[in-house]
């Protein structure tokens, strides 16, 4: 068997975090809350890396450092976009502005 028994609890946690993140991204209106949801999705993956790194090898923890940096970059670029958006429209809710349709 690949996975030890107690790993399933952690897997449940990370899957729930991922699901909450995706739900938040799709349902929230405010851009700031959508940024939170992105962080949750990336951190769900981070949690997986660290948990399985304890059982396998150190590669997962090293990759987690890369991923944390990546999430910081993502947040920086996202906040820059939010600031430009706010300066232009005076609010952070993109669904109120509809020039492009799906």
């Amino acid at each position, binding site marked *: 068997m*690949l*996975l030890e028994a107690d*790993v399933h609890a952690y*897997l449940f946690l*990370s899957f729930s975090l*991922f699901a909450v*993140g*995706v739900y938040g*991204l799709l349902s929230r209106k405010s*851009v700031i809350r*959508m940024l939170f949801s*992105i962080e949750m*999705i*990336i951190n*769900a*993956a*981070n949690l*997986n*890396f660290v*948990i*399985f790194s304890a*059982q*396998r*090898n150190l*590669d*997962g923890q090293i*990759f987690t450092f*890369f*991923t944390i940096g*990546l999430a910081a*970059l*993502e947040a920086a*670029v*996202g906040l*820059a*976009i939010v600031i*430009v*958006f706010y300066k*232009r*429209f005076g609010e952070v809710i*993109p669904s109120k*502005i*509809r*020039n*492009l*349709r*799906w």
Partner: protein
Amino acid sequence: MNINFLAGTLILALTGAFLPVINRIFRISGVLGAIISSVGYILAGFLIMLSGNGRKLLSSFFVTDSVTQLIGMLILVASWMTMLVVYWITQRDKFINELVAALLISTAGALLLISSTNFVSLIIAMELMTMPTYLMVLFSFDEKSMEAGVKYFFNGALAIGTMLFGVSLLYAITGSFNFEILAKELFRDPLVALAAIFILAGFGFKLTAFPFHFWGPDVYDGTCPGVAALLTGISKSAAFIALMRVVYEALPAISSNLTFIFALLAAITMTVGNLLALAQKRVSRILAYSSVAHAGYTLIAFAALAVPVSVTGILYHSVAYVFMKTAAFLCFAVFLYLWGARTMDDYKGLGKREPLLAALFLIFLLSLAGVPPMAGFISKVFVFTSAVNAGMTWLALVGLLNSAFSVAYYIWIAKQMYLEEPTIEKPLNNPSDKNFILIPLAVMAVFLIVLGIWVNPVVDASAAFISKIGF
């Protein structure tokens, strides 16, 4: 990874990083900026050509095989031509050097992405390719581009998050990120299939495959067309090659399960893309939906992954796609700059106003439609051959039908250009160096025609790749 290839990528990224600095200090003119970045491109291209021999390093993260060299060279040429056209169109803008710097860094990321053989390097390279484009989409600072920027950022971030989650599941099963080790240790298991689906969903966002294609046309329409050329042509083509490496090198264990998913996605993607393209009035949206349809054609070759010729199909379609789509969007950008032409009605009679430019645009449109002397034809031949060889004749038939449908809207643009009377009286801009812009576009047309006739380079590269993965 070969040391020369790495040096070429670094030179490209460093040129991009220092171009805005040079501009801040010396206040360089547009022409000088174009010359500096061209020097960066030429040096990088020279080093990539030399990457056949030399020391190797980081060999568990990147590989420099024939596929990397060929596609890297072609992506570099396409990006160079994009840079020249973008400089020419927006030379009066204050932030043009920043835009071109982001283009150079994004191209460096694309070069790393096509050579990565490890999920760590794949994700980092993909972020390096995508991050500058998040900011480039906002470049024109009008309302549409801001909305496009927000949409693009959240879709791209969700794609990366999904892909990371899939990679973490693969790591849970094997304890490794390396494609070779993954290929040895993976086996048929529901968890592996789930991880593969997460990773494919991440790639699906990048390629605008069917369930995730909504953002594509909005973003390509909302942003300025030079950036749309980069997004549709170069970064999508690089993502195709990365997906090819993932599917063939890392996940052969469950490839038989992926076949049906790819076939279904391919059929739906190209049908949706072509049907929605027929309904559009704006030329940029037509080109955007045709790029969705072309993602579908490439997915046909992915669906036929049991036969070796599918590798040739994927490579050839990526190669043809990077030139024809980039060039079509650049032609649109030039028409927009010169005549302010956006909709189908504006295109009436442009063939008489700009005979050479319209002829080049016609070449690219015919190549997108798949007319013989151009590379778009031979790539579709390889793609449909692979589907028939893999026993999926229905998929090849769907592809052929779609291909025939798609001719309708390409020919419609050509008809508006050549057979109608002009409606726009006066050009929006009439610069004196108008003929200069024909050179980059003509270079791309020459590449497209040469690759359509001389099939050896791509076929040789794919043969080397096939023997490497051991069909």
